[in-house]
């Protein structure tokens, strides 16, 4: 899965298509109980909704 820099190639992408960057394994939370309460073991997926804008 080659690495794609969105800004460099943005003009090549057709409009109205969603692009999700590919997750890379960076390890998991040390404290699994905390991860369990957060709802993910992957720090990069820990995106709590803050009632306005995405974190």
């Amino acid at each position, binding site marked *: 899965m080659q690495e794609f820099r969105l800004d460099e190639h943005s003009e090549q992408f057709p409009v109205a298509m969603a692009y999700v960057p590919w997750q890379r394994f960076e390890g*998991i939370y040390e404290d699994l109980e905390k991860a*369990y309460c957060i709802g993910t073991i992957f720090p990069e997926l820990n995106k709590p909704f803050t009632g306005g804008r995405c974190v």
Partner: protein
Amino acid sequence: MNNKDQMLRDIGIVGFTVTELALYLDTHPHDRNAIEYFNHYNRIKTQLEKEFSKKYFPIRVDLAESNQEWRWGAAPLPWEGVCG
């Protein structure tokens, strides 16, 4: 929280971790690093479940193997007010 409840909670937590890793591996099947994490936590989960089932009661019927008596019915039933 007594030892039984703590152990049950630990099984839940390590089970959650194994599920998360499995979901990651579904889309990254060649990720050796993630596979090692999965194997590691899956072994811990299996070991905890066996230990719990021997010490308290079997949490799944495939863990009910016993050389004494049949213990599958020994688990408290959900409506008996034991679950937290």
